């Protein structure tokens, strides 16, 4: 074993130099150059696809937001209880309340009693808000996304909200339907992913209407 010692020590010396060289190439040069290229070629994307309404930055069109208002009631911790603001299209439930600094899902299992109760509660709330039968509420309206920041809802959930938004904003149903139709995306290339409606873009379009 003693005869191996100098060899082992030499390997550690090589290893240290190799690690430092690779850290310089992969950890400094690579990210700096790629950031420069990304900023030059795709400035908007590289900085989070920010959208503006009347000149003001309101959101990233990739990151969902909560369209809620203070209900005037407080929970047991003294925190204001937020409820859906009926003048806006609603996004999906979020395990992180759309806090973009704390992404993530609920991680509750398929037979979890708390999840079951939450789903039943959400179904009732959504049905009451939209004035429809609970059986008409689609799955994405009662489940939290994986990221907690899902900007999209299903076309079914968007359609469910059209009448209410039109009524609250004194717009015609056709006007709101057209807005939803314009923003609805089909599957990419016709078969990738799922059809969806981006609520952030939709509400920005509503806000731009005034």
């Amino acid at each position, binding site marked *: 074993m003693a005869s191996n010692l100098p060899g082992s020590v030499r390997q*550690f*010396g*090589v*290893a240290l*130099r190799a690690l430092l060289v*690779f850290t310089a190439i*992969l*950890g400094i040069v*690579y*990210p700096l150059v*790629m*950031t420069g*290229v*990304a*900023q030059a070629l795709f400035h908007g*994307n*590289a900085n*989070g696809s*920010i959208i503006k*309404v009347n000149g003001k930055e*309101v*959101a*990233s069109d*990739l*990151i969902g937001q909560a369209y*809620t*208002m203070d209900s005037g009631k407080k929970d047991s911790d003294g925190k204001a209880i937020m409820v859906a603001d009926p003048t*806006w299209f609603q996004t999906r439930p979020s395990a992180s309340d759309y*806090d*973009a600094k*704390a*992404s*993530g*899902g609920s*991680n*509750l*299992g*398929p*037979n*979890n*009693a708390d999840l079951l109760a939450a*789903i039943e509660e959400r179904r009732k709330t959504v049905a009451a808000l939209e004035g429809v039968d609970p059986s008409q509420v689609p799955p*994405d309206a*009662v489940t939290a*996304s*994986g*990221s907690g*920041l*899902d900007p*999209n809802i299903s076309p079914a959930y968007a359609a469910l909200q059209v009448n209410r938004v039109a009524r609250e904003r004194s717009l015609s149903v056709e006007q709101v339907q057209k807005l939803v139709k314009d923003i609805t995306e089909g*599957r*990419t290339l*016709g*078969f*990738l*992913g*799922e059809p*969806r409606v981006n609520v952030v873009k939709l509400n*920005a379009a509503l*806000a731009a209407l005034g």
Partner: protein
Amino acid sequence: MSDTAAGLLQVGLLLACLAAVYRPFGGYMARVYTSDKDLRIERATYKLFGVDSKVDQTWAVYARSLIAFSALSVVLLYLLQRLQHWLPLSLGLPNVESGLAFNTAASFVSNTNWQSYVPEAVMGHLVQFAGLAVQNFLSAAVGIVVAIALIRGFSRSRTDRLGNFWVDLTRTVLRVLLPIAVIGTVALVAMGVVQNFSGGHEVTSVVGQTQTLPGGTVASQEVIKELGTNGGGYYNANSAHPFENPNPLSNLFEIFLLLVIPVCLTRTFGLMVKDKRQGYAILGVMATIWSAFVVLATLFEVQGAGSATQAAGAAMEGKETRFGEWASTLFAVSTTGTSTGAVNSMHDSFTPLGGGVPLFHMMLGEVTPGGTGTGLYGMLILAVLAVFVAGLMVGRTPEYLKKKITAREMKLVSLYILTTPTLVLVGTSIAMGLATARASILNTDSPHGFSEVLYAFTSAGNNNGSAFAGISANIPFYNTALGLVMLLGRFVPIVFALALAGSLARQHPVPVTPGTLPTHKALFVTMLVGVVLIVTGLTYFPALTLGPLAEGL
């Protein structure tokens, strides 16, 4: 178009893309590892390292170099986290606590990328791009060079030399990983992934609420996270986060990236052992099992079992609208069949059997198609076992690729195969025996809680990194236990694989006779599929019955 037709076309496009690059990329990698010419930049790096690129190493020196490099990598990554507060671009975050820093260093150096922390709240930009992303490259390269060394064990004879670790490592980084990462970064940014040094960008929504959008060098890290089958997310939500994976196209591209090297290495293998059919046979085994698991996982998720799932009407808890069930299960099976562990949906919220599929897929040892390099060497070792079993059945001396499988080879193969299950099952048992460890379970009201613990140790032992993420793993017990399991699960099998390579390289090739079992035909492919499933099944069946099977059946 129906959901099923669209879903199948989506899988079809992925397979078509992989098929298109299979020959050119597999051939390119074979040339990288057989060429005796160094690039100018490589000669410069060898001078900096202080190594002679023309000197080949024995398996023991190759292994020592690898271990020394990885050990120092753990130390550097640990220090970077412990000192982050005093370094630039920390975003004002404090130094990472010691247990977590050890766990994370072990995790990224072992190519696991288990994350028991919320990245947005713990890791500043510098640790991400100068520490974690660097290991995303290097740990992937370490896996690949072990596979190359094992291939040389078969392709060389009457030598004790397997190649030079430093040369193989440098070529992997500079000729294989970095060029793809550069192109992939630009492609991802074009699709909407962010790439900046922002410490957070505040916007005020149309209802007047403020939201802070996180920044980061996400695209450049995302690409190597998938390409190197690492899986550690820049953000907590990993590839479910819209800034990491904004749309269905980026999703397919990321799945492609995480499969491309493991798949194409089978071509490299076929070329290097001068029998391309051997590569196809190995690919055939990988593809058979991967396809079956995609079908099963999708079937279970679309069926939507579970009381909560049925109340919702579909298995959409933990899934993104833009991906839905099909694109989520395709990602889940690919991430657990490789050693990636990135997730675009939360496996913890999958249906009981739907979530059992990714768990069982990891248990196969991640050989379908496996991590970068690890998948190939893992599968070749199982192929040796299959040849041995076949030899026992018909009473012939087992041979694989013209090398005799003797008692010494079988000892190394057995030790390799036993290491991971031992770590997983012993680790799980200890955790279930400790009250503090049991307290970390989120879903305590069903066998699902046991699945969370089993998944954690399976993920660590197999260097996957995905989680049934409900478990609160950031406690001293899990940080230490999982950190050790990750390191042992990575480096102990590597030493056995390199020892096997050394043992094979020393042999004389035996001539192929009519009595030799052909290892490129459908019969052998079927046998190897059987061996993969039976070895794993027998090892883990009792544990699975306590978790996903108890919940789902």
